[in-house]
C-alpha cells in the first residue's frame, strides 16, 4: 500500500532524514515515535506532498508520488487525509464549512449531498449539531475531532495523524485514541500516526517505528517495542533523562537513579 524507500531530506545542510525505508500494508496503523525535532512531521508532509524529498521514493498503490507536479498531486491528495497537530481549522469558516472544504474542492457534489456527508462525519467523531460553530468557540479536543472529521470527509484510503493527542488532557487523549480505533474498525483505512505519547502509540498501533538520527531505529508491534533490548528505544519509551540519547544544550549531568 505505502512503500517508502531510502528517503532523504536535509534543510540548509542539517540532515533530517538519512535514508528512511518502511512498508505499510493496507488497513494497517503504523505509529512513528521519536524525539522533538527528529523529523516525524516532515516525514508525513513528504508523504502528502507538502514537502519534497531530496532523494528516495514514496510509492502509494504502486505509484511513485514524490516527484509529481501540482496537478497530478491533487489525485494523490484525494486518497490521503491529514490531521494536523494544531488542527489547522480555517478560522474564517464555520465547522461545517471546514469539514466540507475538501469536498467542495475535490468532489463534484450537490449542496445537499455535501451537507449530508458533513453531518455524517461530525456524528462519526461524536460532535453532531456543531456545524454552525466557529473554530474559536471550540475546545482543543473538539478542534482535534473536527480536524479528523475534515480529514475523513473524502473517505480517503490513507489517514495521516500528526501528533493527534498533543496538548490534550489524559481523558481527552484517550477519547481521540478510541476515535482512531473506531475509524480503523469502521473504515479499514491505512494510517500513519506520529506521536511521542507512548500510551497512545501502544493503543492505536499495529506496529511502532522509532525514528532516531534520521533513520528508523527499530520497528515492531507495541509488545515488541515495549520489550526492546535497544538502549535508545528503552530510554525513549520509559521517558528517562538518563541514557544513551544525547540531550542538546544540556550542561548538567542527569541524575542517576539508584
Amino acid at each position, binding site marked *: 500500500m505505502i512503500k517508502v524507500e531510502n528517503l532523504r531530506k536535509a534543510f540548509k545542510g542539517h540532515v533530517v532524514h538519512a535514508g528512511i525505508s518502511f512498508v505499510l500494508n493496507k488497513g494497517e496503523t503504523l505509529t512513528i515515535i521519536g524525539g522533538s525535532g527528529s523529523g516525524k512531521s516532515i516525514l508525513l508532509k513528504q508523504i502528502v506532498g*507538502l514537502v519534497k524529498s531530496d532523494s528516495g521514493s514514496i510509492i502509494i498503490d504502486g505509484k511513485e508520488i514524490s516527484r509529481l507536479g*501540482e496537478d497530478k498531486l491533487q489525485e494523490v*491528495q484525494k486518497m490521503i487525509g491529514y490531521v494536523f497537530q494544531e488542527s489547522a481549522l480555517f478560522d474564517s469558516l464555520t465547522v461545517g464549512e471546514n469539514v466540507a472544504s475538501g469536498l467542495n474542492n475535490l468532489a463534484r457534489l450537490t449542496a445537499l449531498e455535501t451537507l449530508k456527508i458533513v453531518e455524517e462525519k461530525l456524528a462519526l467523531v461524536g460532535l453532531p449539531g456543531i456545524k454552525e460553530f466557529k473554530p474559536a468557540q471550540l475546545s482543543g479536543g473538539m478542534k482535534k475531532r473536527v480536524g479528523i472529521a475534515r480529514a475523513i470527509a473524502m473517505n480517503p484510503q490513507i489517514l495521516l495523524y500528526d501528533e493527534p493527542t498533543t496538548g490534550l488532557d489524559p481523558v481527552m487523549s484517550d477519547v481521540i485514541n478510541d476515535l482512531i480505533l473506531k475509524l480503523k474498525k469502521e473504515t479499514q483505512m491505512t494510517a500513519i500516526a506520529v506521536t511521542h505519547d507512548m500510551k497512545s502509540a501502544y493503543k492505536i498501533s499495529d506496529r511502532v517505528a522509532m525514528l532516531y538520527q534520521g533513520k528508523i531505529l527499530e520497528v515492531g508491534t507495541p509488545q515488541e517495542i515495549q520489550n526492546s533490548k535497544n538502549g535508545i528505544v528503552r530510554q525513549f519509551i520509559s521517558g528517562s533523562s538518563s541514557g544513551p540519547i544525547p540531550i542538546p544544550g544540556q550542561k548538567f549531568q542527569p541524575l542517576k537513579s539508584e
Partner: protein
Amino acid sequence: MNKKLESLFSISGNFVLLLSKPCGEIAILLYRTFFWIFKSNTNKRNFFLQLQEMGARTFPVTSLTLLFTGMVLALQTGYAFIRVFNEPLYVGRLVSASIVKELGPVMTAVVFSGRVGAAVAAELGTMKVTEQIDALYTLGTNPVKYLVVPRFLAAMIMLPLLVIYSDFLGTIGGYLVAHYRFDIPTNVYFDEVYLLRLKDVFHGLVKSFAFALLVIMVACYRGLNTEGGAEGVGRATTQSVVVSMVLILVGDYFLTALLIAFGLG
C-alpha cells in the same frame, strides 16, 4: 588590501542577493497569480468579501485623510499667495492638480497599505504559522488560487476606485477652505478645477494601479513566507507595511518620470 576588497565584494554581493531574492519570488508569485486568474474561476465569496474589506471598510479612513489633505493644501496655498500677491489666487487649480496627480494616489495607497496590506500580511501569516496554508494544499486547494487571487483582484479594483473617490473628496475639502476661509466664489474655484485635463486623471489612475499591485503583492508574499509563530506574524506585518510605503514613495518618483516621458505628465 585583498581581504578588504574581498569583504567589500562579499558585503555588496550579499546585499544584492538579499534584495534580488524577494524580488524574484514576488515575480514568481505574480506569475502564479495570473496563471490561476486565467486557469480557473475565482472563488466569488472570497472575492466579494475582499471587495467589502478593501473598499467599504477602508473608505472612511481614506475619506478623512483626503478631505483634510485637500483642506490643508488650500489653507497653505491661500496664505502663501496672499503673502505674495495679496490675494488667494489659483487655489482651485493647485489643490485639484496636486490631489489628482500626486496626493490622491500616494496618500490613498499609503493608507491602503496600512489598513489592507497589514491585514492581509497578518491574516496570511497567521494561516501560515498555524498550518492552515498546508491544510489548504491537503484539501486540494492551491493557496495562491484561493487566497492571493481574490485579494489581488479586489485590490486592483478597489484602490483605483478609492483614488477616484479621494480625488473628489480632496477637491471638496479644498473648496470648503477656499470658500469659507478665503471667500473665493464657488464658480471661480470650480472653473479652476475644470482646467484639469483627462490625462491628469489618467496620470493618477495609472499610479493607483501600480500602487495596488505593489501593496498587495508585498503583503501576500510576506504573509505566505511567515515563519516563527506570533513574533513572525508581527514581523511580517510590520515589514509588509514599511516596505510597501517606501516602495510607494520611491516608486512614485520614477513612475511620474516615466509617465511624463510618455506624455502623460
